């Protein structure tokens, strides 16, 4: 590669190149000297007109007769350009001094020129408007591109614009740190919070990124943290700069939970579809499958090229003929994660359909799949399961709880069914009657004054929580002008009754429980601030140290509150917003002072302390007053579906088997508000209980089938 030293003056290299002819977009010149051969082209003023660029230095691409590209750098001030591959062109074409060369502008914006040797060609004919099509090849590898910023560094060198070395080296140090980060195994592990990552989760993340090309079905058994696995993969891709645009599709009921988990655990701010104006503008979006596939949004979503698509509860895509399947299959995504604990529910074809979105053809064609794997006796069971499992291992990751060797502590449930005292019972019945009557005279357009549906339901829930919370709400309603007129007297009566109740039986039971746990830490959950304040006062009066956590605290106050509870205080009283994503596993006693009608919220409460990472057995204490709505809800959830013993995440799957468009809470609200009397309420709750039982049974059958397929014997 070493060439002999050639020392020539500029005049020798480019002895006043003469332009033989020139048009608006091209010129022809005769080669004199060996400048071209040595990689230089010196431009005279006429030639410079064809290179009308403002920059001091710019990259020019020449394409020769054989469509080979030559990269040059043009030094405007000095009027020359350097291109190291000119000599290869020279040699290949046996160029000699005196030969004529034409340079023709092809694309001014991209700075592309045509380089033509005009040996033995009548050079007089040019056609500037000629459309030229090129198939680029290159002396160098075409996949290499040079950052445009490089020339700016060169410009500084050339123009002697030097910076102090400590600044120059700082950039270098940054790049070294960045390169070191590339070598880290999983960067995402270092920046997650409140997550106890387990070996199986880390293994999953690495497997998906390193071996499965970022397209996988994450099918761990429920409760093993599929969301964490997806979060780790997502964050890893973001940190490595391989992913920018992400869409997460999840059932509507889980959007907020996903958003919160991604924010608190992975520091990722996803916007839901309500928070965005334009799907195109937002890089991190979470939406329900129904919203995304709606007529309004469908085409926008399909137009975007996503880097990563995550589909939660992917078993909803089991049927290829559904709009869900067709829509998800039509989304453009480089990487795709599908999450489900039950990839097969009724039929092995469901699994085939799921895999067909991830990697079409991976399980061969539909007919071959049927022939090879589908047993005739039971559509759920494969006839060649070892081979199927082998094929699935290249696209699906499934861990069982038993495989992980994680110790799952026990959960003990204690339910206290409390008799209301006389005052409480009277108030309860009075209020329930009031609500039922008012429900049938809801405000209308003609008569907008009155108590709306939501307020009535709220009053019922407040009563279930505490009379103190109810009293506070009633006071507010009465002081507001909106509820004057005919409601005034009834509300005032209810308020008077609430004020006269004194210490409720539920509070007395709570005090007994608190005394019995001695120095152990305890979280008390309530839905209402009124109850929270009342309980905090009562417990403090008894000499307990209490921390209060609710949505009105600032971030700093929330941190301080949790830290106080961890280090100093014995009791934490928290509202629903309590501690999402925060590690509260140092506590093992949880009291449900009141009971949300939405079972998902109850599951979230339990999930605060009984989750992966908890090492000790957990006690859940439910307080409910006899013959109240709360007691019916409790019975429904505890007796019919064993809610308090379910693994976190299982509830959603069971409720999914009810195939109802309304949520369970909506169903309960309708029962409470639309039933004419107590007997009707009880009857409807019983029917609902039967439906839930059926849903639980289906869930158990599906689980058995999964076990058989993925882990059964051949």
């Amino acid at each position, binding site marked *: 590669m070493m060439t002999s030293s050639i020392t020539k003056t500029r005049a020798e290299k480019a002895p006043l190149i003469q332009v033989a002819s020139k048009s608006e977009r091209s010129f022809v010149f005769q080669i004199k000297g060996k400048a071209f051969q040595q990689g230089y082209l010196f431009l005279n003023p006429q030639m410079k007109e064809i290179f009308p660029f403002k920059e001091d230095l710019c990259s020019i691409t020449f394409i020769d007769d054989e469509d080979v590209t030559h990269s040059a750098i043009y030094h405007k001030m000095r009027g020359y350009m350097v291109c190291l591959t000119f000599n290869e062109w020279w040699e290949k074409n046996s160029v000699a001094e005196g030969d004529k060369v034409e340079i023709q502008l092809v694309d001014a914006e991209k700075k592309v020129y045509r380089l033509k040797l005009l040996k033995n060609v009548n050079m007089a004919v040019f056609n500037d408007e000629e459309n030229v099509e090129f198939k680029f090849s290159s002396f160098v590898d075409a996949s290499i591109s040079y950052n445009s910023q490089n020339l700016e560094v060169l410009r*500084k060198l050339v123009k002697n614009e030097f910076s102090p070395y400590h600044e120059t080296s700082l950039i270098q140090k940054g790049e070294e740190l960045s390169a070191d980060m590339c070598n880290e195994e999983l960067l995402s592990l270092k920046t997650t919070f409140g997550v106890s990552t387990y070996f199986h989760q880390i293994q999953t993340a690495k497997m998906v990124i390193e071996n499965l*090309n970022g397209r996988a079905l994450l099918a761990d058994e429920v409760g093993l943290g599929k969301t964490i696995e997806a979060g780790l993969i997502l964050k890893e891709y973001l940190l490595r700069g391989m992913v920018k645009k992400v869409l997460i599709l999840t059932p509507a009921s889980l959007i907020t939970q996903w958003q919160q988990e991604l924010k608190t655990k992975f520091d990722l701010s996803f916007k839901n579809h309500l928070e965005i104006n334009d799907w195109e503008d937002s890089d991190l979006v979470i939406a329900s499958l129904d919203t995304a596939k709606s007529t309004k949004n469908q085409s926008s979503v399909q137009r975007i090229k996503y880097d990563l698509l995550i589909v939660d509860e992917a078993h909803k895509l089991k049927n290829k003929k559904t709009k869900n399947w067709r829509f998800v299959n039509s989304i453009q995504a480089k990487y795709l994660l599908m999450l489900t604990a039950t990839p097969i529910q009724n039929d092995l074809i469901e699994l085939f359909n799921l895999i067909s979105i991830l990697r079409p053809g991976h399980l*061969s064609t539909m007919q071959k799949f049927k022939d090879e794997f589908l047993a005739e006796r039971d559509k759920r069971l494969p006839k060649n399961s070892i081979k199927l499992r082998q094929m699935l291992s290249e696209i699906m990751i499934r861990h069982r709880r038993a495989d992980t060797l994680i110790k799952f502590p026990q959960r003990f449930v204690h339910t206290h069914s409390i008799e209301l005292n006389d005052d409480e019972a009277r108030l309860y019945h009075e209020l329930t009657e009031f609500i039922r009557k008012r429900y049938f005279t809801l405000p209308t357009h003609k008569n907008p004054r009155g108590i709306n549906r939501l307020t009535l339901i709220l009053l019922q829930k407040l009563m279930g929580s505490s009379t103190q919370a109810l009293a506070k709400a009633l006071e507010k309603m009465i002081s507001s002008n909106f509820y004057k007129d005919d409601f005034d007297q009834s509300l005032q009566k209810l308020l008077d009754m609430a004020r006269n109740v004194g210490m409720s039986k539920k509070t007395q039971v709570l005090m007994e429980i608190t005394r019995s746990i001695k120095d152990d830490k305890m979280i008390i959950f309530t839905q209402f601030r009124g109850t929270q304040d009342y309980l905090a006062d009562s417990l403090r009066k008894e000499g307990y140290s209490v921390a209060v956590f609710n949505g009105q605290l600032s971030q700093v106050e929330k941190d301080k509150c949790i830290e106080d509870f961890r280090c100093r205080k014995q009791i934490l009283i928290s509202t629903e917003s309590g501690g999402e994503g925060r590690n509260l596993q140092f506590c093992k006693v949880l009291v449900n002072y009141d009971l949300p009608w939405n079972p998902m919220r109850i599951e979230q409460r339990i999930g605060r302390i009984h989750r992966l990472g908890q090492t000790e057995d957990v006690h859940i204490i439910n307080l409910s007053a006899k013959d109240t709505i709360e007691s019916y809800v409790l019975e429904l959830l505890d007796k019919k579906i064993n809610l308090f013993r379910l693994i976190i995440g299982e509830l959603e799957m069971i409720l999914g088997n009810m195939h109802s468009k309304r949520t369970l809470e909506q169903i309960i609200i309708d029962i409470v508000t639309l039933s004419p009397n107590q007997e009707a309420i009880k009857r409807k709750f019983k029917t609902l209980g039967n439906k839930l039982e059926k849903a639980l049974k289906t869930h158990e059958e599906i689980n058995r089938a999964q076990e058989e397929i993925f882990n059964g014997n051949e």
Partner: protein
Amino acid sequence: MATNKIKELVFSFMAMVGIKCDEIATDVWAANIPEKEQLFFNSFGILKFTFSRDVAEKHRDIELICDGSFLLRKIIERLSEIPKASRLFSLQEPEVPNTGEKGLRVVNSASIYYRQKVVFNFKVNFECDQRREKLFSIVSDPECRVVDVQRGLIEINPQQFSEAPQPGIKIEESGLDLLRLYLQSCQELENQLAPDIAELKNWGVGQCDEELKKFENYLNEQKKELLRKKENVCFHLYFFQKEEEIDKLINDLEEERNRKVRELKEKFALRVNVSLINAVILCIPTVATSPGKVKKNSAVTLTKAVVKSTMPGIEARSVNC
């Protein structure tokens, strides 16, 4: 990655953009962010940050800066967007070129000049459904006609260099064509990258072909099935409508084929991006072989060094990936 390196980088960056940081508690710093910089720091007026994960876990309002944190990545990206070049002057004794002459030589101070070497520091990103990053330093010494390529970045010891020339020593610039040196360095770099490029290309093509093959079979079967249905469409009551329906499904399949093929090719296509991180001109005091006559050798093609640079003050700092 050592936290100290990160700390040093962050504090140097803050100083560079004129932001003062105070340690307000153990392992917690606060910085008053001027308005013009607030957008960069996520609109914080006062940024509290820590390098300790434990602190950040307890105080979620405090920004954690560690390897993998978004803020650190932003700082590095911002730094990389600032084009920087420096010139340093060696404080070492003048080098005496080996002329092959025997015996003592008299050195006249007037015959000493600064010859220039250029260090180009490059970052190379490979992307092909996986990502690699490599760093290279290339030292071009036009007078010795040597291009020395090093994996990782070399470290220049600032103790052995000054930012100003020694009085009375002139800088010889006539033989130096920086553009040519840069292009030669790029050419040498590309030679170095060839094995990685070949490996990744093969991998990408292999993966892509494998998936394409399965996909084509899968689609072809579906198409065959549809065509079979189309043949039997005459038995259908509204056979025109049915035929149209099937044609549409076949068209959809073709569209899907094109889209997926495009997606796969794009996913496994290799992209290599070369960034010039910075450049440093090193001026080395040298005794002229023949006073006043310095070689002009700008057009000489440099060759790759067989032996690594032994110049004092320069050493390999990092070898990545």
